[in-house]
């Protein structure tokens, strides 16, 4: 399969979860031009055909880049691998800091009850409830068994 087809197939398979950057764009364009040169060398059908082919290949390359950019834009809302989600400043210091009185007060001060409630939700996500409910009998059984 040719380079350009590789790119199109990649997009068709909905696997555009790659880091987008200028180097990525450049690589896609280089691949496209390489495929175009290969094709031109193989056909050798005269200047008019070469010009027509060159235009077609440029259009195809531009379309591939546009498709990838659009796919990335569509998926950025769901996946932001390069940008960590903003965390409350206190949460960044230590997981237990988000449950300190000042951290909870800051959340309330800055965002009212909604922000405080969100912080409670995040706290459960980070610190959890306990792994499970164990009766004394279950604990004794497990220690006797070991």
């Amino acid at each position, binding site marked *: 399969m040719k380079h350009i087809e590789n790119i199109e197939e990649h997009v068709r398979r909905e696997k555009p979860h790659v880091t987008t950057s200028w180097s990525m764009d450049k690589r896609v364009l280089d691949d496209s031009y390489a495929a175009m040169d290969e094709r031109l060398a193989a056909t050798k059908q005269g200047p008019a055909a070469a010009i027509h082919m060159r235009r077609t290949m440029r259009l195809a390359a531009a379309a591939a880049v546009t498709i990838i950019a659009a796919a990335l834009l569509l998926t950025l809302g769901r996946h932001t691998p390069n940008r960590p989600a903003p965390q409350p*400043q*206190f949460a960044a210091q230590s997981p*237990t800091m988000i*449950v*300190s*009185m*000042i*951290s*909870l*007060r*800051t959340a*309330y*001060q*800055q965002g*009212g*009850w909604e922000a*405080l*409630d969100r*912080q*409670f*939700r995040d*706290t*459960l*996500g980070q*610190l*959890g*409830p*306990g*792994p*499970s*409910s164990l*009766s004394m009998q279950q604990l004794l059984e497990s220690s006797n068994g070991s």
Partner: protein
Amino acid sequence: MNNACKISFAGILFVALAAVLVASPVLALPPDPDNAALLYYQAFLSLAQLSDEARDHIGKVARGETPPDKQVRQDIAKCAGAIESAEAASKVPACNWGVRYSKGFEAPMPQMAQMRYLTFVLIADARIRAADGKYRAALERCLMAGTFARHVGDDTLISYLVSRSVRGVAYKCMQDVMGRAAGDAKLLQWLKDELAKSDAETLSPVRPLKMELDVVSDLMRMENVEKLAQVLAGFGGKASAAEIAKMADEKILERARRIYTERINSALTVMSTSMPYEQAETQLKQLVGNLDSNDPSEATVQAFIPALDKIFAQKVAIETHGSAVKAAIEILLARARTGQLPDALPSGLPKDAFSGKDFEYEKTKEGFTLRCPGKDLDIYRYEFKLSK
């Protein structure tokens, strides 16, 4: 039988009973905790470990946004141990969460998030019971959540806010269940009596505000300037903690302490004085505002002074919700007596705490509504849908 024989027999019986009592294994066991918090902490540890989505779903069921489905029934069943511990806790009068006040604002309060989760579990369980037609059992859960709200208490401002939130979710559930059980006069009378007993609580923002006054005043001193700077930097300003600490001096902090103390003391006076709600709200709003963020002392105060008007509004809103529930019980009892909803609000019912006036009563296709006079927003309108 002669007297000597009778005395001997009684003596033998006494010794035998005493021996049985002494040898009884029940007496060898220490008593259960006399601090409800210890039982609640056990409940928190016994809550099922569920995904964020599953917990959010429980929350939606608890708030009545979605009916209980098979999944939530399974998840609540996994929390049976936690509910049992909370049930035991609700029977213990005293509750001390063991807040480490000596740590000031750094005091850890991990129990707060668990309280929110346990509340949703209890109320989701109440809604499952109601969906199964077990109205009394559902209302018992709501009352238990009410006790939990009282136990959450007002140790700190956050505790107070959480406590009011628990109360609100419990009242909302009660409001929905009452409508379904509208035809059961005996159940309504029982609920009325239970509410009269359990609602005698005196939680208020005054106590936590006094506590914060001490903590913040202590923090606004040069010997604690590094801690203070860390807190202020945490509020998201441009300056780093080191820069804030460098800028601070005794004069700035002394002025900040004075402004903060004056404003909180004024707020405490407003909250403790009987006055129309609008007047209190206006005064509290003024105490929170009019602070220049470019003035170091006033900016420091601004970072710590809570939204006093909103805290007060929440207090009055929960009182109003409680009054609406109690007034609705009376309306439903009148309906049970006469066979139809009254055309006008009966006299002598609990009033809207915002205005001090009777609720505006309106019959609807599905039941009736109670609205706070002069308030247009839906949050001040309590709807009671009656089952046919």
